[in-house]
């Protein structure tokens, strides 16, 4: 009898320009892992026939919108789901056309792994360097280089090795410690799901085997605990008259009953007396669990506050330096008044300065650009109306990230990653 199988979850993103075969790789992963069902295949076959194509075009599996089918383009990020007996996968499928940076930033922001595709005939090109730089910028923990179209490169090891070496060296210069390089042919199916019969010189895993096996769970015991308060739970019913719990998702680290904590930005201190993990009282809980925390003292705590261990608490600041990616069509300019959303807290902020814009192709800096436009990456300094308990993004993707929002119409303007050291590290 089937029982509930508890497998782990892997979120990953793909990056590649249109001609690198990204859609084919995604279609192949879905198809060969038997995640495409008969009625979906039938719909694709039907649509392909209507276009005069003989074979089903697997790229149609991922182009879901009318405009995409009509114009043959991909709009924005789509999320795909598939599973093997070992793991469940969420794929952020990011289009490779001109809006690449903001889309890849969006996909990479939640990814634990990124696959960068390269055409074996072209090797490492500008676009490849951009993809690697975005993965490094967003601190995606694992990077895979898929050298595609090996069938068109004679399945030759030297072609693969040269690209893998060049890419690995470039990644190392970005601070990415480890790259898994896999020679594939997405079209022919070599080393995507099934091992290739054409490349016996390659002894490593297929793409799917690597996705199934890579260890991605964080090590919360190595991180400082951070607990942004989302919502205060006060039932005020006869059974729970004195219950006052702080609900939230642990952003990093471990919380335990007995921990002495401080509440930021007020700086008041207390002790954790109870942790409720969705209905069950526990002694400790860790990221990314959603829990409710109770404290010994009746402090004035509300949404937007941060609970952290006294000894490792961040120092709240109103001056924020960050590396940002501008995602809106409207530019971001020095002097703009914006809203800044950090964890559960939204505050007013002013753009004080934009010291530089970064060109991802060669990582060169352009000083004082005055504004950032869509897809630009740059350094920004901000002054906030209230203090924020920010961590450097290099320490925490969760408490080091923020959004800038247009206060007039609510548009998401900019994706921010806090910390000066971080901006500098990308540019050496």
């Amino acid at each position, binding site marked *: *009898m*089937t029982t*509930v*199988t*508890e*497998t*782990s*979850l892997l979120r990953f993103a793909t990056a590649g320009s249109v001609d690198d075969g990204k859609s084919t790789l995604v279609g192949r992963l879905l198809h060969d892992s038997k995640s495409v*069902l*008969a*009625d*979906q295949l039938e719909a694709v076959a039907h649509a392909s026939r209507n276009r005069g194509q003989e074979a089903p075009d697997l790229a149609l*599996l991922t182009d*879901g*919108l*009318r405009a995409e*089918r009509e114009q043959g383009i991909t*709009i*924005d*990020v*789509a*999320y795909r*789901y598939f*599973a093997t007996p070992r*793991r*469940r996968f*969420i794929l952020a499928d990011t289009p490779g056309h001109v809006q690449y940076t*903001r*889309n890849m*930033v*969006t996909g990479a*922001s*939640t990814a634990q792994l990124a696959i960068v595709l390269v055409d074996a005939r072209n090797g490492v090109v500008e676009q490849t360097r951009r993809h690697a730089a975005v993965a490094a910028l967003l601190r995606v923990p694992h990077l895979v280089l898929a050298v595609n179209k090996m069938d068109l490169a004679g399945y030759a090891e030297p072609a693969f090795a040269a690209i893998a070496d060049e890419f690995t060296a470039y990644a190392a210069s970005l601070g990415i410690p480890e790259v898994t390089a896999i020679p594939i042919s997405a079209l022919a199916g070599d080393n995507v799901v099934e091992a290739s019969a054409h490349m016996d010189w390659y002894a490593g895993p297929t793409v799917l085997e690597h996705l199934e096996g890579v260890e991605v*769970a*964080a090590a919360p015991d190595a991180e400082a605990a951070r607990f942004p308060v*989302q919502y205060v*739970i006060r*039932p005020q019913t006869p*059974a*729970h008259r004195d*219950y006052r719990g702080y*609900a*939230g*998702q642990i952003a990093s680290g471990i919380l335990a009953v007995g921990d002495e904590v401080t509440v930021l930005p007020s700086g008041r201190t207390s002790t954790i007396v109870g942790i409720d993990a*969705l*209905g069950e009282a526990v002694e400790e809980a860790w990221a*990314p*669990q*959603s829990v409710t925390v109770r404290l010994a003292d009746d402090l004035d705590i509300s949404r937007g506050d941060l609970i952290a261990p006294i000894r490792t608490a961040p120092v709240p600041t109103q001056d924020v330096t960050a590396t940002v990616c501008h*995602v809106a069509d409207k530019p971001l300019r020095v002097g703009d008044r914006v*809203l800044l*959303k950090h964890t559960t807290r939204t505050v007013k902020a002013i753009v004080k300065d934009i010291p530089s814009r970064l060109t991802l192709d060669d990582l060169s800096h352009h000083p004082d650009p005055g504004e950032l436009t869509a897809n630009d990456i740059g350094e920004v300094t901000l002054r906030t109306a209230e203090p924020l308990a920010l961590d450097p993004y290099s320490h925490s993707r*969760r408490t080091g*990230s923020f*959004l800038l*929002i247009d206060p007039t*119409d*609510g548009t*998401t303007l900019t*994706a921010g990653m806090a910390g000066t050291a971080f901006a500098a590290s990308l540019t050496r």
Partner: protein
Amino acid sequence: MNPYALSHLDALESEAVHVFREVAGEFERPVILFSGGKDSIVMLHLALKAFAPATVPFSLLHVDTGHNFPEVLAYRDRVVAEHGLRLEVASVQEFIDDGRLRERPDGTRNPLQTLPLLDAIERHRFDAVFGGGRRDEEKARAKERVFSLRDEFGGWDPRRQRPELWQLYNGRHAPGEHVRVFPLSNFTELDVWQYIAREKIELPSIYYAHEREVFARAGMWLAPGEWGGPREDERVERRLVRYRTVGDMSCTGAVDSDAATVEAVIAEITASRLTERGATRADDKLSEAAMEDRKREGYF
């Protein structure tokens, strides 16, 4: 093995609870769309966990097509009473009766739900509307955001969606606009069933194999009822069936099945070569972009 690794169900649960609490913290008047189908039942279960031991700080909204399965309505009323929830009903039948909507020639009422839904949203000034939609259901839904802004006409413009960065959801909206929120975005059909099994969640009986009178239309087994089936040329027979989705009786098909327990259902859908909607929803087959078109008009 990393002792801190979360199972996929724990990770999905934690993420959905986070979404519920974000909405509770940032919106004035949220509401949960509740159809009595498995996705909305799982959604409500997650909401109950998110705010325990307090009650869920949202009311429920049922868009009643007038062609509901009786078992589902009974389930709905039982759940509302048991958890002390408030239920609003938006009735398609009322809209037809007073002339604001006209019955379609094919008798299908699913597309007629949009107007009563938008009317209820406007009348109650709901600013956040939870839906049980999942991105694995349909390729237009694969593009849907967890927080999805709708304009003052309830419309969805896929080109104007906000990028979804980290777990930072932007719920800002102008008066008259609202946000659709999909806490189950990252669940698949199989995840939903595994979660139902793990949490021992009760479902309406029609989700499990039972003998029932059905007739064939357009390759599906439909249940006879006041909605207008069967026609003269359609023959009713008794079959062992169950439902994979629950919606309007006129367009929700049953599948042949002997899966009478949650474990048997999981085994069945694991082996199935058809998607949930492909197997059982006539309304998605109306055109290649049927779902996208309805979403643009304000459907959820």
